[in-house]
Every structure is written in C-alpha cells, then in structure tokens.
C-alpha cells in the first residue's frame, strides 16, 4: 500500500481519477454523456471534470439528451476498437436505452460468433435520499445481472469505485457500473494509483463467525453500522461487499456462509426477484441442510420510491430493518 492510501477522497473524485488515469493510459478510452464536457460543467456530479480540457472534446463528448444515441454510439465505438465510457445520468434513464444495452451490447460477441466484442462501460448513478421521487432512484441491477453477457458492478467506497472502474474500462465486455448518489459525497480512503480491483471478486469487509452479512453499494454502509452495533453485544458478523453482482463471487459468499451458518442479504433494490433471491437460492442449494437459519433478505419497500421525507426514509433498507432481519436470523 502506498502512502496515498492515507488520504481521504469521495467517490465522485475517485471516479474522476479513474477516468483521468484510464484516458491517459490508453488513447482508445473515450467518454460520452449529457453535460460531461467541461464547457457543460464536467458532468452534473462533476465526475468527468477536467477530462475534455485535458483530452479534448473529440474523446470527451457532451451529447444531446438521447440515451439510445449515447449507448448506441458507445456500442458502435466499441465495435470499432474504442473503449467508451458512457454516462447515463441516472439509472432510471437506462430504461430508455435497454434495447441497445440488452439486445446489442450484451449479445453482439455471441451473435457474431466472437468476431466482435463490446468493451463499453455504462456508468450510472442512483439511490434514494435526496427527495427525487419515483423516477430517479431505482436500483435495477437484477435486470442486468439476469442478462447473459453483461457484467454488473456496484462499488461502496471511493477506493473500490476507482479500482473497479479501471477494471471495467479495460474489460473486453460490457459493464454496467452502478454508482450511488449519496455516496458521491462520502469520504473514504484514497485508492492506490493505477491499482485495478478484479471484477467478480467480493471483499470480506470484516471477518466474523456468527452471521454473514452480504451487501453492496450504499446499503453496505448500513450493514457495517449494524455489524458494529452487534459487536457491542458480542455478536461477530462477517460482512461481505459483493462489489460485482455479475459475475457473482459466490465462492466467497458460500465459504462465509458455510462458516457462520447464517446469512442476511441486504440491498436497496426491491426484494422480490432481486439479487438476494439469487444468493439465497444458491446458498440453500450448495449448503443444503447445513445452514442454521434460512437466508434472510432485506430491501426497499414494495413500492415506487416515494417523495415525502418520512416515506423515503422508511423506503430504503434502514439499519433498523437490517438489524431486525439479523436478530431474526440469529434466533
């Protein structure tokens, strides 16, 4: 670990650093999205600040509001040898571009019998907490993970955001890179410059022996906080940050579950047909008869994201709800 690891930065900065480093390293890395060039402010969340000034508006392009055109241009660019990083401002807007993502980016390698591949990254952000209401804060990672050919990554810390984004950019297949709006502003350890974090590898954030807590993205921090509370009660929780949802590092999850016998999966997406279901289904299969309790799942309320503050607060998987699921699982 270099000394830079002592410094604190936030995730918006970490992403910005990763983009700068990737563009410097490789001329084929290009960036596009709404308002992302410096004349437009370097992105609404400043993640792309300074890129166009440094690398030019040929490689760093602000776009019209046209998500199909954005992802399409990224797909075509990727087919022609570029490594495009497309910003879809908020995850709900990926709904406009699902055809390009699912019918094209995800499938072209296979459909062309391996003649082509689509090394593109779609960066997008989401998450409740800022009063944006029903159309700006959905977590849709399960859709993408359900789609063969796509990788899905969702970092929880600035350093992970940096290292995972670098890996996505230099991966030869399409990656959906999910950022979280509130996390943009939360400081964390700075990454080591140039260090990539492999895709498909979960991180054991904290070792423990009584229960395994699996999470990713912002909810991870609630889980860690819950685990802290438990520690005071003498309960030892192992906390796993999936980091990648697809490919899923199931080995790490299984090994932990085999050790603790109890698992809670928490994420901000809907519970039903969500990522937790896949993990629960696999764990019960692989560890049949050995788990001490059923795998518990915690997620958002079964509703669209509400506006009013008290509803929004209750909508997300709160620490209290996570703790309740943990206690039930420990019972």
């Amino acid at each position, binding site marked *: 670990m270099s000394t830079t690891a002592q410094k604190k930065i936030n995730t918006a900065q970490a992403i910005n650093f990763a983009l700068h480093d990737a563009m410097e390293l490789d001329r084929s890395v290009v960036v596009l999205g*709404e*308002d992302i060039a410096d*004349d*437009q*402010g370097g992105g*609404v969340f400043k993640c792309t600040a300074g890129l166009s000034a440094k690398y030019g508006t040929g490689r760093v392009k*602000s*776009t*019209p*509001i*046209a*998500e*199909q055109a954005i992802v399409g241009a990224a797909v075509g660019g990727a087919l022609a040898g570029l490594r495009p990083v497309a910003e879809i401002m908020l995850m*709900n*807007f990926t709904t*406009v571009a699902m055809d390009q993502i699912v019918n094209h980016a995800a499938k072209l390698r296979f459909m062309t019998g391996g003649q082509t591949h689509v090394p593109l990254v779609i960066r997008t952000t989401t998450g409740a907490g*800022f*009063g*944006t*209401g*029903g*159309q*700006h804060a959905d977590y849709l990672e399960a859709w993408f993970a359900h789609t063969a050919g796509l990788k899905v990554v969702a970092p929880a810390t600035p350093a992970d955001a940096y290292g995972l984004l670098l890996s996505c950019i230099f991966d030869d297949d399409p990656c959906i890179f999910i950022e979280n709006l509130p996390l943009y502003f939360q400081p964390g350890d700075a990454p080591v410059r140039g260090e990539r974090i492999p895709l498909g590898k979960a991180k054991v954030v904290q070792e423990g022996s009584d229960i395994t807590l699996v999470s990713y993205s912002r909810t991870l921090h609630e889980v860690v906080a819950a685990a802290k509370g438990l520690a005071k009660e003498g309960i030892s929780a192992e906390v796993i940050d999936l980091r990648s949802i697809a490919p899923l590092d199931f080995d790490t999850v299984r090994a932990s579950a085999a050790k603790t016998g109890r698992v809670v999966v928490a994420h901000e997406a809907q519970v039903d047909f969500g990522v937790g279901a896949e993990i629960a289904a696999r764990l019960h299969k692989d560890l049949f008869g050995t788990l001490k309790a059923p795998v518990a799942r915690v997620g958002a*309320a*079964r*509703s*669209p994201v*509400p*506006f*009013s*503050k*008290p*509803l929004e607060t*209750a*909508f997300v998987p709160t620490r209290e709800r996570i703790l309740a699921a943990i206690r039930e699982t420990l019972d």
Partner: protein
Amino acid sequence: MSDTHQPSKETLLEIYRIATLIKQADDRFIELIKAGQIASPYYSPRGQELIPAAISVNLKPSDYVVTTYRGIHDQLAKGIPLKPFVAELLGRATGTCKGKGGPMHITHVASGLPVTTGIVGAGLPIANGLAWAAQLNGTDQVTVVNFGDGASNIGAFHEALNLAAVWKLPVIFVCQNNRYAEHTHYSLGTGAATIADRAIGYGIPGVEVDGNDAVQMWRAARDAVARARAGEGPTLIEANTFRFRGHLLGDDSHYIPKEEMAEAVAADPVPRMRAWLIGQGHASDSQLAAIEAANVAAFEEAVEFGLASPYPDVSELDKDVVAEGAHA
C-alpha cells in the same frame, strides 16, 4: 404576422394574473427551500411564465395539460388549487399526491393535470393517449404537452409527433425553448435550425413564437387549440424563452455567457408585460397591484396550510401501489 387579433382586456389581465402568480410562487418556494422546508431538487420556471399563462386562457378545465419536473408554471396556469399544490411540494399528506409524488411529479386530475413526468420526453407519448381517448369519446378536449428544447432530441419526441400526425390527434406539442438543456446550449445538442422546423418531418404545422410575448403566444395557442378542437390534428409550437435560475436551484449558470443572461433578465417577461399593460391603457398600476396582492394572500394561505399539514404515515408506502385489495 398579419394576425392583428388581440386578446380581450379580461384575457390579458388573466394572463398577467397567472404569470405573476407563477413568479410569486417561485420566489416563495425558493424561500421555503432555503429555509429547509422542501427537501428536493427544484426546477424554477422563472422567465417562462407567459407561455402557460397565455396558453391556459385558451383552454377549458376539462382539457389536459401534461408537463415535467419544471412544471409549476404549467400547473398554476391550469388552475391547480393552491393548498394541495403547496402541500405536495412540502411532501405533506394533504398534497395532491399525498406527498408521494413531490415537486417533480405534481399532478391534479381534477384540474386536468393527469401526469407530470421527470423523464425527459416521456410526457409526449402519454399526451397522445389522453388525446386519443378524447378523440374516441367525441369530447372536444384538447391535450397540451409541455417540454424543453433538449427534450426535442430524444426518441419519444419523434415517435409521439409522428403518431399524433398519423392519427390526427387533438394534441398540442409545446416546446418551451429556453435555449439550454441542463448545461448544454441548444446548438450543441440540436441539429435543427429551429425546433419548429421539425414539424415538416411529420407533416404538421410548426409554429415558432416569442413565448415571452403574451399576445404572440396567445395567438399561437388559440390557433393550435382551434385546430385540435376541429379535429384537424396536432400542432408543434416552439415558444422561445429563457430560464433565469439555472437548471435547478443551486446551479450558478456558469455555462451561460454573462451577456446572454443579462439580456434575458433585462427582458423579464412579467415586468415587461406589466409595463405594457399600463402603457397600453389596459390596466392601471393599482389594478395590477391589487391582482398581485390577491395572489400573495391566496398563496400565503396555501403555504400556511401546507406547513401546518401532517406528513403522510409510513403505512402509505403500501398503499396506491396497486388497486386496494389486490396484491402488489
């Protein structure tokens, strides 16, 4: 051009009443936000007041208006009742949407405001459906759908205008061209010389007007409404205007050349209309002051109502997801 038809004095005063109400409401909301009373991004329509004001006097209560996150001007113009309107912005249980929708999604069906979307372009295809229902039911309802210059570059715009043209729907597409889409200037996002030009590609009338001129705007709306009511199909109106307060509150408009902003603000449509009304002898200063005062009083009452209203109960999360009694 040669159209010299003038709105009546009453109509002009009504346009002014609405425009000034919008301006006052916007100022007041910003105060409320700064005071921490509204926890949400806020998209100010300051500078664009005359557009919906001049449209709405051509509409009936039963007509539909579809709008966006930047929509309080459209909603106020359509006659949304102030109390539940303000309460919704404050996220209260007494809001039009019980606090579930919020500032980006204010709707009020009883006022003809059935949908307000935060997704750029998405209102246009939905407006077609409202218009289709009116066409089928043989009512003379017209649907007005508002959107920005940036929205004219998204696929939904194209699909909607084309479908409306082919189906001859009673719908009016109003592009409030405030020259910027978030931080991106018109010229960087839009290939067309004017948005109105795009009407050619659908075989429908495309009208470019100064949206900050009440009379021009009123005429354009009058014609489009007449066309729609007569079953002659859709119209695309490009209403040129400007946005004074950035994309959302907190945006410092650094990407807008200072002169451009200064010029626009100097031509602020609401005071300009005020001066014009007096200058033309349509109203006296005190008459207009009375209108303004009445607005403020009504609005303050609504703010009081909103602030005194309870937040929705957390049990509301489970309600309105699907019909009562059905499984979510």
